[in-house]
């Protein structure tokens, strides 16, 4: 069994022992899972943390299958990096398309003060301003109810970010950060995936993130982010073999090696991949299985679903392809798999997919029924064939 970064320490002779949580050294930005004690770090998006079981377990790989135009997947990657900046983790960014430096430059800005506290203060100030005119006339019994109170929680996991601003430079300069741009001409000799793996291995060993080495007292976590792995720009230009079959095999080897490397280190890796470019579905399935968590973003941008009234509130669907099962037979399972994401002006959220309220027939709804109607068996009172208003 692979040794994981779990806070377990069994040395006593009896099999009965109190579950302790204090054994693990405190690492900023990480907390043990409530379910299995795995050390978790935040992805930077609280709703995503919640869906994947509280956060990303240290030592695992998250695969994000990109939307067609890749913008939302890159946004999740930036959230992940921004969270690393806020918690002081080391960062490693690799990319072949956009420069890693541009990705780092556009990290979302943290919202410094607690929004919950701020809104509580706002309510308090409103309270004093309430005058006689505001007295309730009909629902007068509710007039003297105490205002909604909220106590900001003391323990914080994850931060809030504002997408409309970018991370200030001085914060970014506080953390150790390494970039690898694959199209740099300096080192085009070795195959790209091997080069990426060697760089990652070097980062883990040099930074002291490996659990196999002797550990220092102040340990930290390394966040590895790879943007658009497997895109056409990752290929070798001189290879004349069939493009995607060749690439699929190399990618699988890379992910396999990466998983073994990450398992033995205090590192967590997020990879975005344009899987919609792979014509062979089996390759995609294989790649998903080689990662611990796999999610897919399906953006509505430029597709028919953009105009579909069912999806009007959302920007895309969020598919969970695989959830981690770490040191156990079963893992966390969310309530529903019907999820969608929504990009507001300042943040990205992932929500349960709700259908919009049934509206009267308007111009925008004259198309055919967007939800494929289940063909009801025509037993009993239903008339055969055509739908009549008298059917019940």
């Amino acid at each position, binding site marked *: 069994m692979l040794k994981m970064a779990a806070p377990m320490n069994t040395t006593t002779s009896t099999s009965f022992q109190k579950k302790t949580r204090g054994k693990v050294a405190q690492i900023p930005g990480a907390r043990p899972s409530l379910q299995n004690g795995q050390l978790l770090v935040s992805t930077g998006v609280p709703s995503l943390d*919640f869906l994947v079981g509280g956060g990303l377990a240290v030592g695992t790989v998250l695969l994000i299958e990109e939307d067609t*135009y890749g913008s939302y997947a890159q946004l999740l990657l930036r959230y992940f990096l921004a969270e690393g900046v806020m918690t002081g983790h080391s960062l490693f960014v690799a990319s072949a398309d956009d420069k890693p430096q541009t990705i780092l430059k556009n990290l979302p800005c943290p919202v410094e003060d607690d929004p919950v506290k701020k809104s509580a203060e706002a309510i308090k100030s409103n309270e004093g301003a309430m005058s006689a005119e505001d007295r309730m006339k009909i629902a007068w019994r509710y007039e003297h109810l105490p205002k909604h109170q909220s106590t900001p929680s003391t323990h914080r996991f*994850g931060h*809030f970010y504002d997408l409309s601003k970018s991370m200030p430079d001085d914060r970014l300069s506080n953390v150790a950060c390494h970039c690898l741009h694959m199209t740099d001409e300096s080192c085009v000799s070795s195959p790209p995936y091997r080069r990426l793996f060697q760089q990652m291995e070097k980062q883990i060993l040099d930074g002291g993130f490996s659990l196999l080495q002797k550990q220092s007292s102040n340990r930290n976590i390394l966040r590895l982010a790879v943007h658009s792995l497997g895109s056409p720009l990752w290929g070798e*230009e001189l290879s004349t073999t069939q493009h995607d079959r060749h690439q699929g095999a190399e990618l699988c080897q890379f992910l396999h090696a990466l998983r073994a490397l990450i398992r033995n280190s205090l590192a967590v890796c997020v990879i975005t991949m344009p899987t919609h*470019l*792979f014509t062979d579905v089996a390759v995609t399935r294989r790649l998903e299985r080689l990662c611990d968590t796999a999610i897919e973003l399906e*953006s509505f941008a430029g597709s028919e679903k953009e105009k579909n009234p069912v999806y009007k509130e959302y920007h895309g669907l969020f598919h969970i392809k695989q959830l981690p099962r770490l040191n156990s037979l079963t893992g966390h399972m969310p309530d529903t798999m019907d999820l969608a994401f929504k990009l507001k*002006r300042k943040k990205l959220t992932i929500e349960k997919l709700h259908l919009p309220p049934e509206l009267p027939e308007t111009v925008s709804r004259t198309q055919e029924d967007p939800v494929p109607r289940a063909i009801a068996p025509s037993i009993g009172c239903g008339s055969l064939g055509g739908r009549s208003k008298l059917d019940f």
Partner: protein
Amino acid sequence: MASLLQQIVNGNESSSLIVIQDSVDVSGRPLLRCLTNQLSSRVDQVHVFLFDCSPTVFLSGFDPAVRSKVICHDGWSDPLEWNGISLPDDHNIIHYSALNDFRSHIESHMTKGVQSIAVVIDSLSPVIINKSVTLVCKALHQLTQSTDWEGPDISEIICLLHQDVHDVSATSAVCHIATTVLYLEPYRSIAPIQEEPMALCELVHRRKSGKVIRMREGLSVDHDYRLFVFPDKTTANVEVEVEAQPDPTANLTFNLTLKESERRAKDNVVLPYTKVQQRHGHPIKIGSSEHSGKIFYEPDEADDYDEEDPDDDLDI
């Protein structure tokens, strides 16, 4: 609003890499020439890489003013270096073999003092077939990142791609790195080209902000490389049918609106519970007594709280 295709052609809508996908049914070359014509008025030099037709054929029909700005790189006469030594000609010959070939050719044939250039590639297809998709994608990506190298910025790159000679993975890989893709479809009509489109164009344009626009438009190009754009008839027809909504408040037997005097009279009516309140002498208070409950709400990590929109109901 002018059509999106028109805006892209005359440069009002910026796009760094445009790919025109044509097939044997409809040629994208007239549109490519039209784009070249427009480009020459915007930039100082247009570098044209020709792999599918000879430079003399391509240049014929252009105005002298346009010709003076166009620099042809001939990849048509000797694509695989079978002739051995290249002949000194007025058009330079390119054997596309290495990643940096586009850039080095542009650099070596650029006149001094040029501020802005554009690149036109007449058909990527022979290069994809002779070399590889990866090489083409990397080369195009390198050209779009032209801010890295000294020399003028490449404002626009326009490529032609024959979609019916490649498999889906090749075309999707090229389209993945493009910012605008024009899919051409034939439209059979015998009407003059000023009145009916000669091709339909499905246009997918990605703005810098990340917004993606998909449109369908008809187009035709005449002998002087002028572009005529037609709105797509199939989508135009859908919008017309606006059904008048019946007003439910039109024929009512009672009055729904209040005059000012009536409103005042309504406000003066003493509601039944008001008397109850006053009989007790003081208003009844709920929740202020010590025995009633209080609600403490501790926000969960899963709660995404937006301070500007606490109810999550604004359409921002």
